[in-house]
């Protein structure tokens, strides 16, 4: 969340509630409802770290603070923009569970694969319903398309795991 705040403050200083509004506009339902407390605690931490500075606006009876980027904030934003997000996704919750549970003999491997396949298929159905329904806006739709591709990859991976399992059983 922090770098998003920094990026939103890059072109102009803003009030906390403006940041909240911008994020909600951009990401729609992709964001869970953000309460004001979360926004201000994030801003407080950014300010503590010297990345933003908040000023009370004169004549504003609501005594809201207007936030702007510091030089350190600008530098942090630049390095965030320049660094690509990590490519390889080696961390996978299902796979860690699978390895540990199977190694300890706590469940049949096929049962784990089947349950996971069900979940992925059901999730794919859920996401396709979002796309068929429309009305989420182009940004949310692109995000859903990305999630769909990951699910398809997940299903292919389950097939591969199942296949290796079968080969392992034959050669054992």
């Amino acid at each position: 969340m922090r770098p998003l705040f920094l990026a939103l403050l890059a072109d102009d200083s803003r009030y906390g509630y403006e940041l909240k509004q911008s994020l909600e506009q951009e990401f729609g339902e992709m964001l869970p409802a953000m309460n004001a407390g979360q926004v201000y605690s994030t801003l407080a931490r950014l300010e503590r770290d010297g990345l933003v500075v908040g000023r009370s606006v004169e004549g504003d009876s609501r005594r809201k603070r207007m936030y702007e980027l510091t030089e350190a904030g600008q530098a942090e934003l630049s390095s965030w923009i320049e660094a690509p997000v990590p490519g390889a996704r080696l961390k996978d919750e299902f796979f860690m569970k699978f390895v540990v549970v199977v190694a300890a003999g706590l469940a049949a491997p096929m049962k784990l694969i089947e349950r996971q396949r069900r979940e992925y298929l059901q999730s794919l159905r859920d996401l396709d319903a979002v796309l068929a329904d429309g009305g989420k806006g182009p940004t949310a739709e692109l995000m859903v398309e990305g999630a769909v591709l990951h699910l398809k990859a997940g299903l292919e991976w389950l097939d591969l795991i199942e296949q290796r399992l079968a080969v392992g059983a034959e050669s054992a």
Partner: protein
Amino acid sequence: MTPVLEARDLAKTYDTGGAKVFALRGIDLSIESGEFVAITGPSGCGKSTLLNLLAGLDRPTSGQVWLDGERIDQLSETELARLRRRKVGFVFQFFNLMPTLSAAENVELPLLLVGRGRKEARRSASTLMSDLGIGDKQDAAPAQLSGGEQQRVALARALANSPDIVLGDEPTGNLDSVAAREVLTLLRAARDRGQTLLLVTHDARVAAAADRVINLRDGLVSDQTELQPARPVAFPFDGDSG
């Protein structure tokens, strides 16, 4: 209730010069009226063989196939052809439209084959094609149509006789993702109108649209999943506000 389509201990063995290949090793399967079922599995798992046996396009080595309460695996070719025309619609990966006929004539064909009048066939085809969003393509030759449009024509043809069941072999297999999505939407709509569907597919998106997904492996059913109506999707964001 009688299932629309049923397989009982269905097996198929191919004899390839001494070496026996067990394509299917005992499949039990029952499709109820109005169900949308997808069959998935890796290539070589027997899913296409199964579809051919269920469609009466091939004969099992052992076991039985029942269509609408009638055992069909021992019928003659003529009887099978007659039964297929009245009770089964087909959608294939490569559309299989008659290239010398117009789109509308392709859709009229199954109607004429069961003895409907030419005018009535024309009217039904026209209505169906409009429903599937290809009302303006009636006079086009298949070769003039995009893949997605050809598959819609094929779907209209499959639905023309209001068949008991539509069987599909990789119906989105030869389409780009946009056309695949459109065909899938139409298949879903057909199911919503009560059409029974059985599709063989390796497209996870097609499988996810089905009510039941049957996974085949090495000629056996390895898993069956009943899918629930789509759940509301929560869009989690980072969540980490620190």
